[in-house]
């Protein structure tokens, strides 16, 4: 990660940092290696989200060591190679940083002890792989390949997450070290099969198994160092790694062998056959990688310890020769300007070093003696010979031999058609590349050769402990030598080479007669397009473009869910009912009548507003009757402000609603509404008639005075016990006010501005107006009321902690007092006298509340704990001051700011639509200023 900043310092510094970091990690790993191989398992664990079972825990066992070594070792070589491969003008910083990020994520996968952590790293490799494949983001095929890889491996990652969650649930822990000890419990669980399928889904997509293999060839649009690193040696092995990691608990069942081995075999065959007919060098290598991954999966799928050990051996061999070959393909591309096998030939003469390296690596890939690939292939055939499907014991070895023959053919085609044969003209005149390009692959080729000549010394020390780690010590040590005597496997091997050579010889005719291959990318694209279309249709059916449709779906769904949840519960509980007084019945009737009238008369909008205020009044009265004075006060003041606001808005909106809906729709909505109302009413009835659990109320009741210092329990809850809720709430209110400001402040421009201007020009005709704009009596009365209202507000505020009242109500009363001034004398007049902008009020309120809460933290108490004490003043007597009051001041200020901002902004917009000139005098007739004014 250090490399990012280092690239700012210059390219050499950045590359040096990247190399140094990787090398240091490799040295560290090698330092740990002897201990690990001797059986120690170093662990680190840091709790991260313990509630989710997610710990940042890592451990290093031989399997992790092998993969970490591959990742860092090949990583180092690839970094060196990339340094020589990238052109001067490329974005080096981005490339190296993402490559290192990938390296870190990959290490995370192989070292993770916690399976959830593993998934996190898993997805991280998918993301970095996306960025690396799409590195040349100006090329369409890069973007397409990157997208496809992300979709396939990313959705595979989701499957994996689900599978590992199931697995962790069965095992009772998300730590791998625990899961690996629960084999019996896991395999006996009914959830074993779903978990297995999901995990395999993740592994097969990542490791490009048939039929998910198609993304890997498309990913070849990446720069060659990326292909060599991600798509041959490391990332695609992550799936194989996980299969190996979970092999002890998952393998050995009927389901495991009948799913994993055939898919591996199919992948091996398909990959090998298709690879022979690829004309792109990297395409050939990509399909060959698919084939070899299939081989690995098949070996693990056999479920026998010996086969798993062979898989481990082949992982090392494959990483060595395939990364070397990818680098070689990059060299050919770099030197000749072409990767098309048909356009290449006879390069050995001009590029002897690269040619030799290619020859050796390809021979290992073909499984020819005396190379590493030969040993693992022979052991693979040996295992295949031991595998019978049902009564049939020849089909597996036969198919494996066919795949091996194809593999011989395409390996030799790589060498034969590129380096040998007649020399073809190429876009660039090729010569051997600089050492920076061939040296990394040479190191890998040396390993591949040594793995064949002296297998026990080269690989034995690591393969045996890793095989033990995978199989739990069940595997016998592999006999790693070139000559096993004349065995059936050797005969099959010879057969494969012979058939392979014949296939290569017949390549030309075969190429012409082979059936066309199904185009997986095209199928994939069609699937994606269909999914997009489907979701669009679905979205459109649910909401766009009609709010009516959205709400109807929403209401119907909630109704169905509520009905499902409440169905069958007894309706009435045991709580004794309260008798209703005649007054209560009258108020109830009033609410019902007003509600009915609003529904019937809602087209006449002013009338509907008047009626809805009747409902509000009724609700306030209900609160009074039902022992909730605070609520009654709040409801009535909110009611006033709301109605004022709606009136102002209605000034600019149409005054009536011509009917739009067909009768059928109205009937449907009416039925839906009645059902919803009935459900809610029954729910309310069911709640109210049950005997409540009094623990919570009793607690508040007992603690409000001793803990919060107030006798008004409602207010104490608001400013103290649930102060955080209130804090959040005033923030919401502030945001709503700012939103209103943003919506209305810009109405002077654009279509809205033109419409307002048209209205103003039309002179507001049709709107009846009072001849007096600012009536004398109203103005005078409002002036008298202002100080009275402010004092009332203060009174309500101060007593709020102990008696009904408090910051909300006080804030609303202040706002109403100010609004009356606006109403009486007009917006311009009031605005001139306004000293503090509403924004400042909202901000000050939220800040005051926040600082009160932070004060408590400074004193070492939880956020928003209130302190209080009693003071005695002469005359006034004893009174109480609590920090909660500061908080309440904040609440009050925010409410005033928000309300004033909403209404004054609305009034200002209305002003824009006015025809009359702005009027800055307080009233129409001002006797003091204009004695003759009274005409």
């Amino acid at each position, binding site marked *: 990660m250090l490399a990012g900043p280092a690239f700012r310092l210059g390219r050499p510094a950045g590359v040096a940092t990247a190399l140094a970091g990787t090398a240091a990690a490799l040295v560290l790993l090698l330092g740990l290696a002897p201990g690990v191989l001797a059986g120690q398992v170093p662990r680190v664990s840091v709790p991260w989200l313990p509630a989710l079972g997610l710990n940042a825990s890592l451990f290093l066992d031989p399997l992790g060591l092998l993969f970490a070594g591959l990742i860092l070792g090949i990583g180092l070589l690839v970094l060196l190679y990339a340094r020589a491969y990238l052109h001067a003008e490329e974005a080096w910083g981005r490339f190296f940083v993402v490559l290192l990020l990938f390296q870190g994520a990959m290490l995370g996968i192989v070292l993770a002890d916690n399976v959830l952590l593993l998934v996190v790293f898993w997805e991280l490799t998918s993301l970095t792989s996306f960025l690396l494949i799409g590195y040349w983001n100006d090329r369409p095929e890069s973007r397409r390949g990157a997208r496809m890889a992300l979709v396939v491996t990313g959705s595979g990652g989701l499957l994996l997450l689900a599978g590992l969650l199931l697995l962790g649930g069965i095992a009772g822990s998300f730590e791998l070290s625990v899961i690996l000890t629960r084999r019996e419990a896991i395999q006996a669980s009914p959830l074993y099969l779903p978990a297995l399928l999901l995990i395999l889904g993740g592994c097969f997509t990542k490791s490009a198994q048939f039929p998910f293999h198609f993304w890997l060839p498309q990913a070849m649009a990446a720069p060659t160092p990326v292909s060599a690193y991600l798509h041959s040696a490391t990332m695609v092995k992550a799936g194989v790694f996980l299969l190996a990691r979970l092999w002890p608990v998952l393998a050995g069942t009927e389901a495991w062998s009948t799913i994993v081995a055939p898919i591996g075999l199919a992948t091996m065959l398909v990959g090998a056959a298709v690879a022979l007919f690829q004309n792109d060098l990297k395409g050939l290598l990509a399909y060959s990688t698919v084939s070899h991954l299939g081989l690995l999966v098949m070996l693990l799928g056999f479920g026998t310890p010996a086969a798993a050990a062979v898989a481990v051996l082949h992982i090392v061999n494959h990483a060595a020769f395939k990364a070397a070959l990818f680098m070689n393909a990059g060299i050919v591309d770099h030197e000749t300007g072409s990767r098309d096998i048909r356009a290449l030939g006879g390069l050995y003469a001009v590029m002897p070093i690269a040619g030799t390296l290619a020859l050796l690596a390809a021979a290992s890939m073909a499984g020819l003696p005396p190379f590493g690939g030969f040993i693992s292939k022979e052991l693979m055939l040996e295992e295949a010979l031991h595998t019978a499907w049902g009564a049939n014991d020849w089909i597996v070895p036969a198919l494996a031999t066919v795949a091996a023959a194809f593999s011989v053919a395409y390996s030799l085609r790589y060498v034969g058609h590129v380096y040998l044969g007649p020399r073809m003209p190429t876009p660039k005149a090729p010569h051997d590349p600089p050492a920076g390009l061939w040296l990394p692959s040479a190191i890998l080729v040396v390993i591949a050769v040594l793995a064949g000549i002296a297998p026990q010394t080269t690989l034995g020390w690591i393969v045996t402990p890793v095989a033990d780690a995978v199989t739990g010590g069940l595997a016998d040590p592999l006999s790693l030598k070139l000559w096993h005597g004349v065995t059936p496997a050797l005969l099959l091997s010879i057969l494969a080479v012979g058939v392979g050579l014949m296939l290569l010889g017949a390549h030309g005719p075969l190429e012409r007669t082979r059936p066309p291959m199904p185009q997986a990318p095209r199928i994939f694209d069609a699937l994606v397009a269909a999914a997009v279309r489907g979701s669009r249709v679905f979205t459109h059916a649910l909401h766009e473009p009609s709010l009516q449709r959205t709400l109807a779906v929403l209401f119907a769904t909630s109704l169905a869910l509520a009905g499902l949840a409440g169905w069958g519960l007894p309706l009435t509980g045991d709580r004794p009912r309260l008798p209703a007084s005649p007054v209560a019945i009258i108020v109830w009737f009033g609410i019902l009548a007003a509600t009915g009238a609003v529904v019937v008369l809602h087209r006449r909008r002013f009338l509907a507003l008047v009626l809805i205020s009747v409902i*509000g009044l009724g609700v306030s009265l209900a609160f009074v009757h039902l022992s909730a004075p605070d609520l009654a006060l709040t409801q009535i003041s909110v009611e006033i402000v709301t109605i004022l606001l709606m009136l102002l808005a209605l000034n600019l909106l149409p005054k009536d609603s011509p009917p739009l809906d067909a009768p059928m729709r109205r009937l449907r909505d009416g039925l*839906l*509404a009645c059902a919803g109302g009935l459900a809610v009413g029954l729910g309310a009835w069911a709640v109210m008639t049950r005997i409540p659990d009094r623990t919570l109320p009793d607690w508040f009741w007992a603690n409000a005075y001793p803990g919060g210092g107030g006798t008004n329990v409602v207010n104490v809850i608001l400013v103290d016990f649930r102060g955080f809720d209130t804090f959040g709430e005033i923030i919401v209110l502030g945001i709503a006010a700012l939103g209103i400001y943003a919506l209305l402040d810009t109405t002077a421009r654009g279509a809205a501005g033109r419409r307002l201007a048209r209205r103003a020009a039309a002179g507001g005709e049709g709107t009846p107006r009072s001849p007096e704009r600012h009536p004398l009596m109203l103005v005078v009365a409002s002036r008298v009321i202002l100080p009275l209202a402010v004092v009332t507000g203060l009174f309500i505020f101060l007593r709020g902690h102990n008696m009904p009242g408090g910051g909300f109500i006080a804030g609303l009363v202040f706002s109403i007092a100010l609004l009356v001034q606006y109403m009486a004398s007009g917006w311009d007049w009031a605005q001139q006298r306004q000293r503090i902008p509403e924004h400042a009020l909202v901000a000050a309120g939220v800040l005051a509340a926040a600082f009160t809460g932070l004060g408590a933290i400074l004193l070492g108490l939880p956020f928003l704990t209130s302190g209080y004490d009693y003071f005695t003043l002469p005359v006034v007597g004893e009174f109480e001051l609590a920090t909660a009051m500061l908080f309440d001041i904040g609440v009050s200020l925010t409410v005033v700011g928000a309300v004033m901002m909403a209404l004054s902004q609305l009034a200002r917009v209305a002003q824009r639509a006015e025809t009359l000139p702005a009027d800055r005098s307080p009233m129409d007739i001002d006797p003091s200023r204009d004695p003759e004014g009274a005409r």
Partner: protein
Amino acid sequence: MSLEFLVASAVAVLTAAGLYLALRARTFPVVLGLAMLSYAVNLFLFATGRLVVDLPPIYDKAATGYTDALPQALVLTAIVISFGMTAFVVVLALRSYLETGTDQVDGRRSPADMTAEDEQGRQA
């Protein structure tokens, strides 16, 4: 008739009216419907504390019983939040009307609402 029945039926009627109005095709009835739904929801929340008459929500040594203060506190904030929401929705309705020249929310547009300018905008 019991008080519980009165409250439950009022909640039911307010909800039904609110739902019906919210499903109408113009902004203003939707706003009215939302306001009615907030009355209904607030009443419902309040009712979860059960109905009591003539008992103080204020701490008093002489009191024999008391109301459940928690739903009251929750409803108090809910009332203020409903105001914030109603205000915002009204202004949103206003702005969209000023911007588009129609107050319909059913995704269609009746020709009567269209001005010459909008007509040009559509054809352009």
